[in-house]
């Protein structure tokens, strides 16, 4: 037998042995995710109780998680599940808990305060939510009290909506050559400049729909070297509000990773616009916007849906200006809660610390998506 066959036989035998060991004596976490048992068998400490709860939420073991709560008499299991995954379809409805962190805030012999940070993996990236849990001793074990946030229920009603709606009829395939078609919306880049960041070049700007019809917009940029050769082409992807009503302005941000600004000779911008059927509804009010200075610089505020339509996903885009009115940064946040009519929902957009001191003013726009199509 040569050395190759010997090695293959050894690897095969080792694999079989490891499979047998893993099956007979599984790791606690694997067993928990397989539904066999909790990762931590005992809630002998406040932290362990909250960790158990986090693991059960991670495994979507709602029944076990609900059963482990100290204040479960205050709400039903369905309300507990809806509190975590949303009462109406939202980003959280189609997400999974990626990981969680537990941080003790305060502890005594009979109760404790723990902070549970949940990192949800959503279709648009990570979404983080934090809950402060009161944990109480019950005999020899600890139980968490879930700070339930009950979604306000909408009273049955009829809300008349008479906002404008645009539909588009394009020329048909049977039309003669030269037959007139509807014009694409006229859009204009009203501001644009590149910024060098640690991870590459970023192009910031604003795009205006100067037409009288709604536009679906996107922006593509091509960096050209000093001898006018293309370096790279990137698009704004979701760092833009793709639907612009007449005279509406959206910021955009385009990233060019691993590119140095010193090597860029010029930039070719390509705004794209297309006619799109759209509605002027819903109208979202952005209330109590505040620029919070560093450390932890951010823009916070509340979204209030002034229309009757339920907004399933809201995308908040903030444009940050310096004292001269120049755009210094564009940042965004997806709100993971449904926007119910007249129900304020908070948002928080983080601003890079090094840029925060240059920010003098800001402007916020909200792109909304309702189930059944984008609005």
């Amino acid at each position, binding site marked *: 037998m040569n050395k190759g066959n010997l090695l293959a036989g050894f690897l095969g035998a080792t694999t079989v042995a490891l499979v047998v060991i893993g099956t007979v004596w599984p790791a606690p976490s694997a067993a928990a995710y397989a539904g066999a048992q909790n990762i931590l068998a005992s809630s002998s400490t406040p932290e362990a109780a909250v960790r158990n709860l986090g693991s059960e939420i991670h495994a979507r073991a709602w029944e076990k998680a609900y059963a482990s709560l100290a204040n479960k008499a205050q709400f039903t299991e369905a309300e507990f599940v809806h509190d975590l995954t949303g009462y109406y379809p939202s980003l959280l409805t189609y997400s999974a808990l990626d990981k969680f962190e537990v941080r003790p805030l305060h502890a005594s012999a009979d109760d404790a305060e723990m902070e549970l940070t949940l990192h949800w993996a959503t279709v648009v990236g990570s979404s983080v939510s934090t809950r402060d849990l009161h944990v109480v001793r019950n005999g020899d074990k600890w139980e968490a009290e879930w700070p339930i946030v009950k979604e306000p229920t909408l009273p049955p009603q009829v809300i008349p909506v*008479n*906002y*404008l709606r*645009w539909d588009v009829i394009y020329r048909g395939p049977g039309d*003669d*050559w*030269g037959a*007139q*078609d*509807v*014009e694409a919306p006229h859009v204009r880049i*009203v501001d644009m400049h590149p910024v060098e960041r640690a991870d590459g070049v970023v192009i910031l700007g604003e795009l*205006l*729909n*100067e*037409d*009288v*019809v*709604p536009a679906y917009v996107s922006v593509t940029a091509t960096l050209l070297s000093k001898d006018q050769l293309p370096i790279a082409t990137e698009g704004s992807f979701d760092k833009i509000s793709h639907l612009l*009503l*007449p*005279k*509406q*302005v959206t910021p955009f941000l385009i990233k060019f990773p691993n590119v140095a600004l010193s090597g860029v000779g010029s930039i070719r911008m390509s705004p794209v616009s297309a006619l799109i059927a759209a509605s*002027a509804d819903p*109208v*979202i*009010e*952005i*209330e*109590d*916007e*505040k*620029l919070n200075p560093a450390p932890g610089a951010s823009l916070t*505020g509340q979204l209030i849906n*002034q229309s009757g339509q339920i907004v399933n996903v809201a995308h908040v885009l903030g444009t940050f200006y310096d004292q001269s009115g120049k755009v210094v940064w564009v940042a965004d946040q997806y709100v993971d809660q449904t926007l119910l009519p007249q129900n304020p929902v908070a948002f928080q957009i983080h601003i890079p610390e090094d840029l925060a001191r240059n920010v003098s003013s*800001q*402007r*916020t*726009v*909200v792109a909304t998506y309702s189930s059944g199509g984008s609005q």
Partner: protein
Amino acid sequence: MRSRTPFLLTVLAFAAGHLAFPQGASMSLPRTVEAGKAFSIQSTGSGTATLYIVGLGQVLKRNVQLGGVTVFPPGSLCNAGHYLAFLARESSSESGSFDVVPESRPAALSFLAKPSRIPVGIHDGITGAVYVFDAYHNLMTAPTPVSFELSNLSGSVQQRMVIAHDGVAWTAMDSTARQGMDRFVARIGQVSSTRVVGQVPGDPCGLKMNARQMGPLVQLVTDPVRDCNGNAIPDGTVVTFTESYKGAQSTVDEPLKNGTAEVQMPVHTGATFSVASGVVMGNQIRWEK
């Protein structure tokens, strides 16, 4: 030696002619034929032959009696272009060519008008290009006068007369100061083609809002929003209301409805309300109540 040269040339010429037309067959082709019109080809000689006419995507074949006239009825050749004719017999053939030209009278216009939607008051903002065709869709390359006319319901009319060269004529017109659907007509004689150009309002001008208290809220209402030519800005246009107070800010993007935008915002003493639409700023109101 000098006296034998003409004789040799005569013999060569005779021999060459005998090779090309062994039976003395030939045909007489027209130089041009108007598209769709009847035409005829006269042949000489005796016996029978096959006449082929080969053109752009089209071949005609006729068995002809040499010495007679072959008549092609109207509609035989409709596509303008260069055609080859071959008169073929078993042992010889003759070829020639002729052109089919467009009809002298235009029958159709392809009118490209751009844009279909334009703000008012743009100099040379509307362009129209006309391609002139005959009844068989042949591009008419002969110089042809084309009349362009842009008119609207208010009675404003712009006219241009342009000579089409190589089948195409184009012009540029100004958008007027009044919004509406303009008729853009290109005409040659009785043949015309019409396009509709929507003239839409420009940017808002003199944007102004008023404020009044309604309980814990302030109601902000704009005056009817118009452009600098007095045209009403269309409904759906976004008007942005902003309230600034104590380092905080509230914003609403409100579409125009019935020509005005209206919003209710919370009352904060010392707050400043501002209004804008696109890149146009309106007035500011400072709330001291």
